[in-house]
């Protein structure tokens, strides 16, 4: 059910990287919906792209949660890409190249296509921006047009796991590599009030194999990048960035889809805590706008 919007101006919602934890954004959107606060634009990074796209397409939060259960299961990483292993072991013999990924991505592509088909970013009812990272130079890439499936696949191309994804002749990898919480995109697009939901990458409890070692290194880098980028944007933005950081008391692993209700609940709790201020801020802005127009 769509409630009438209580506030004239809405907010930009930025959903950072965080695998299944990004479902907390559905809790945030539930809170905004209940308060009658419109979403003017959505920005997504990595798994946050899935939710940003579902919401921008007009899916309800319940539908989005159900889609996640269908899409984001551990089976998407079950299939090894045998040729990639051979390329890693014998690079000259098997022709190692930039499209390296140790997991077969056919299942994830099948599911993304089933979920989003040929939907295009520029045709979404709510303006949508999806971020990835240019594999050639590390620059952030922002997709505001084109096939949503391509941008999502690019943005979830976790290094070593899924191969970089080609779009218009360039290769892209996971958006978290350039900015795990891309509030800068919302700033650039003119957002005045940015509600940013970000997540720390979990550190490994035990470093028992090379994969866990790689994830630990990646978590250290991405958590430090998250801090530095967020600090820069917070100080650079003239208006307001409201960070919403859910606190998960349970450990959430990459594919813990059975914990989605709990994740959404924590997202709601974190958003509820900031709602009184957000409402006051939007009311104050509306008063300034009305005063200026009078």
């Amino acid at each position: 059910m769509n409630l009438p919007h209580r506030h004239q101006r809405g907010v930009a919602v930025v959903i950072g990287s965080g695998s299944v934890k990004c479902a907390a954004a559905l809790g945030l959107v539930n809170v905004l919906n209940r308060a009658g606060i419109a979403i003017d634009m959505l920005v997504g990074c990595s798994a946050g792209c899935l939710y940003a796209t579902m919401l921008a397409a007009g899916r309800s939060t319940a539908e989005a949660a159900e889609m996640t259960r269908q899409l984001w299961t551990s089976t998407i990483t079950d299939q090894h890409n045998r040729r990639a292993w051979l390329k890693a072991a014998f690079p000259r013999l098997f022709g190692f190249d930039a499209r390296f990924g140790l997991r077969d991505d056919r299942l994830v592509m099948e599911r993304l296509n089933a979920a989003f088909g040929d939907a295009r970013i520029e045709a979404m009812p709510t303006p949508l921006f999806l971020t990835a990272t240019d594999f050639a130079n590390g620059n952030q890439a922002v997709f505001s047009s084109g096939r949503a499936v391509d941008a999502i696949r690019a943005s979830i191309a976790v290094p070593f796991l899924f191969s970089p994804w080609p779009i218009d002749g360039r290769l892209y990898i996971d958006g978290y590599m350039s900015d795990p919480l891309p509030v800068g995109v919302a700033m650039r697009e003119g957002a005045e009030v940015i509600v940013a939901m970000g997540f720390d990458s979990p550190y490994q409890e035990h470093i028992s194999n090379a994969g866990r070692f790689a994830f630990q290194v990646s978590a250290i880098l991405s958590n430090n990048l998250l801090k530095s980028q967020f600090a820069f944007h917070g100080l650079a933005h003239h208006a307001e960035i409201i960070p919403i950081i859910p606190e998960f008391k349970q450990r959430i692993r990459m594919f813990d889809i059975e914990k989605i209700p709990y994740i959404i609940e924590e997202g709601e709790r974190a958003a509820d805590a900031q709602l009184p201020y957000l409402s006051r801020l939007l009311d104050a802005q509306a008063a300034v706008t009305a005063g200026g127009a009078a």
Partner: protein
Amino acid sequence: MEIELSLSGGITVVGIRGSVDGLTADDLMRILSDRVSEGAVRLVADCSALDYTSSAGLRSLLGAVKLARQHGGDLRLAAIQPPVLRVLDLSGFTGILKYYPDVETAVVSFAEPA
């Protein structure tokens, strides 16, 4: 947001209650700047009743820290509550500000060699 000023061992203690955000950050910055202009360059922000800070609040805190340091003093934080500490940590502020578990320790820290 409510501000309460007091003196403890020659240090100005600024008790901040409520939320430092886009609606209140300018007030905080003005109050802190006034104190620094009056020569009170060694300040402790008592954050025990501070329950939220947004990006605007962070900018004002950072501005106050820079101003105090430019005048040979410092603004140090005390008794930061976990939700605020998470935002400060996420924003990298815990790496550039000095913070202490309580006001007394923060006040005493000014007596220690820098």
